[in-house]
């Protein structure tokens, strides 16, 4: 169930990126299918305005990336686990995306540019202009020739034969001017009276607007026909002759094509710089969303990559805080599964080792306690035994003077028994710690009350509690009083009657997911050597005359019962600082 919950955002992210990718592909297909076809067909690009709608995608992507970057900056500021690694991954992915897209773009645009440059080379333009000039010259030549012929006296003389021998007349015309393909004669009313030559191009309807000598041009299929009119009189009657000549097949179409190609060439010469810029614009327009999408995907991917590292880092922190029960859940077949499994095994072994160590420490402690107990019990037994033997000896040898030794011996026995009773009571206290009863209490008030007692008794000591914050926590006030009394007494004794300072501060700190109250008790006393540091929490270890050596072990035990921790820093000749971390939100239930 937990895994399912974890995977849901990842799945949503993958689906979102997939959806955006499909949108991008559709956008490119629309451009390729609709707009590119319009470009190639040369129509006005009205549909290009729809591209403005596709701006939504890059804008959305940019917004998403900005949000993700903002989150990343925030994570880096808060020193969130894996933030630096994630930043490096993102820079790497972005760099790779740019590395792959920029050369492609340069290659594609260079290819288009060089292809266009080669297609529309200066030689190509010269050839087109030359071809056009040839066509113009040819058209002028033909026009001039037939115009010259129609206006000549030779043609006028030839026309005299139109009724007598028309075929001969036609042969004469063709022999003089082979380019002429047809000859039509019309009467004054415009009626055709004679057709000679290619009858497919005849059938001219005389246009009154076209006067004599005017070249008219008509099209018949793919053929262009030049016609010229000549008026003449024969026997007092007015006639009109129309000479037709056919230009080579597709002459006009080819000439028009040459003109169009020159038009294109001219536009290329004038617009290719701007065209290249627009190509770069369109390339960027469509490649930018791909780049943005890959950056967005890299955010998702980097999250996935760093997730095990983050879990590992969090787990290490938990273990460092003493939580050996923490384990990392890893997906099967994950590349980092081996690392995670090794870590879990290591933590399990650490927990086992710690339990063994605790057990061994307990056994050692009890062995030491037993030895000390035996020693402590043995010590008073000797004076008891000696006192008893003294009474017995006196009684057997001098019964009359028994009263001389009886009282002091019995007094010595009673004193030693009382010592034994006291020793047993302390041992009982240590062995059977009373159950703490936590209540809501203010640490500042508590410490202030306690310090007041010491300030009155030790005027040579500067007691500074200005660093104690106003913190409320759940704890047993009696046990806390005992803890602080013990530590402050130790601090006072470490000053050995000299002037000095004892500083106490209390701060709220956060460890993992829990809030703690950290209390520091610092003195400027004699400090501890290394040997002493290793033993101060051992039962019955003491450096004080008449000390039982159970004070600090009891303090440690009480703090452990409060789910807290105690440790210290000390330097010989400088002083000692004890640190106590007590959980703030500890409920009564955890004590029982």
């Amino acid at each position, binding site marked *: 169930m937990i895994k399912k919950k974890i995977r849901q955002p990842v799945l949503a992210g993958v689906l979102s990126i997939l959806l955006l990718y499909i949108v991008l592909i559709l956008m490119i297909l629309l451009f390729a299918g609709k707009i590119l076809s*319009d*470009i*190639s*067909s*040369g*129509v*006005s*690009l009205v549909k*290009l*305005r729809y591209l403005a709608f596709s701006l939504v995608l890059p804008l959305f992507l940019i917004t998403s990336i900005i949000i993700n970057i903002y989150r990343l900056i925030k994570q880096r500021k808060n020193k969130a686990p894996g933030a630096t690694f994630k930043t490096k991954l993102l820079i790497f992915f972005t760099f790779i995306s740019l590395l792959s897209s920029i050369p492609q773009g340069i290659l594609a645009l260079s290819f288009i540019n060089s292809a266009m440059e080669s297609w529309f080379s200066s030689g190509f333009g010269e050839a087109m202009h030359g071809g*056009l000039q040839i*066509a*113009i010259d040819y*058209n002028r030549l033909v026009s001039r020739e037939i115009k010259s012929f129609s206006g000549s006296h030779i043609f006028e003389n030839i026309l005299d034969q139109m009724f007598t021998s028309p075929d001969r007349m036609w042969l004469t015309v063709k022999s003089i001017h082979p380019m002429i393909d047809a000859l039509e004669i019309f009467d004054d009313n415009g009626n055709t009276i004679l057709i000679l030559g290619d009858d497919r191009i005849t059938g001219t309807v005389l246009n009154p607007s076209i006067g004599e000598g005017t070249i008219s*041009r008509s099209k018949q299929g793919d053929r262009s026909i030049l016609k010229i009119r000549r008026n003449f009189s024969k026997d007092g009657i007015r006639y009109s002759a129309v000479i037709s000549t056919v230009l080579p097949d597709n002459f*006009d179409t080819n*000439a*028009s094509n040459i*003109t*169009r190609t*020159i*038009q*294109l060439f*001219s*536009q*290329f*010469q*004038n*617009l290719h*710089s*701007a*065209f290249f*810029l*627009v*190509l770069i614009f*369109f390339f960027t327009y469509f490649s930018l969303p791909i780049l943005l999408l890959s950056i967005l995907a890299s955010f998702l991917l980097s999250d996935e990559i760093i997730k095990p590292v983050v879990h590992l880092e969090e787990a290490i922190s938990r273990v460092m805080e003493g939580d050996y029960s923490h384990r990392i859940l890893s997906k099967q077949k994950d590349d980092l599964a081996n690392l995670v499994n090794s870590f879990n095994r290591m933590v399990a072994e650490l927990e086992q080792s710690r339990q063994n160590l605790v057990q061994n420490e307990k056994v050692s402690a009890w062995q030491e306690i037993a030895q000390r107990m035996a020693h402590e019990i043995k010590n008073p037994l000797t004076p008891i035994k000696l006192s008893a033997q003294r009474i017995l000896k006196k009684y057997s040898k001098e019964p009359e003077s028994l009263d001389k030794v009886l009282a002091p011996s019995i007094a010595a026995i009673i004193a030693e028994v009382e010592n034994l009773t006291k020793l047993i009571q302390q041992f009982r206290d240590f062995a059977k710690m009373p159950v703490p009863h936590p209540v809501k209490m203010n640490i500042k008030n508590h410490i202030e009350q306690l310090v007041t007692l010491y300030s009155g008794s030790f005027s040579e000591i500067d007691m500074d509690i200005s660093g104690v914050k106003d913190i409320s926590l759940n704890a047993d006030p009696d046990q806390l009083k005992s803890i602080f009394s013990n530590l402050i007494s130790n601090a006072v004794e470490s000053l050995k009657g000299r002037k000095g300072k004892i500083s106490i501060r209390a701060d709220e700190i956060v460890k993992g997911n829990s809030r703690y109250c950290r209390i520091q008790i610092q003195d400027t006393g004699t400090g501890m050597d290394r040997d002493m540091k290793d033993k101060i929490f051992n039962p019955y270890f003491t450096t004080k005359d008449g000390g039982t050596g159970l004070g600090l072990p009891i303090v440690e035990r009480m703090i452990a019962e409060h789910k807290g921790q105690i440790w210290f820093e000390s330097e010989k000749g400088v002083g000692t600082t004890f640190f106590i971390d007590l959980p703030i939100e500890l409920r009564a239930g955890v004590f029982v």
Partner: protein
Amino acid sequence: MRKINFISFIILFLSSLSLHAQVTNVVASLNNSKAVIHLHLSDISPDEILKSLSENQTAEITFELRLYKKTEKFGLSPAILTKEISSVQSGRWIPVTEQYTISTGDKTFYYKKSEPFLISFLSEEFTFTLPESSKATYYCVTRIRLIPLKFMAPFNLLEPFFRNYSRTSPWTRVELTG
């Protein structure tokens, strides 16, 4: 045709904010449901067109007409679009034949002189019949879009970057009354 380099392209693109005011002259007549709409673009410099044609380029003009039927309904759209017609004419100069041509659809018209060519090129006539049974009144709106120098493929990709590329007259409304 002036060569456009990088800097001049940017300048042209930025300076193309100025709009030219063209006017559509519309003459409409209605006779027995037959409507004849004559459109002509005026206030245009013919030199620009002729210069473009003399450089072997093509000019293009698009005439658009929308016929609306008036309704008595109140609302956002008090008229119904009944008919939409458009006509595109391409003008060229053919140096071989030394003729101006106007191509529209499959038809090509030839002109020896520039004056009749320009008159014909900048004009169009739409003829259509209104629905007979209707006693409704109609009006039409017209617009003319002139491209003095038409970009050929693939350079038509540049069209959106030249706002001065085409000159479009505002929509002109004409009532159709018998």
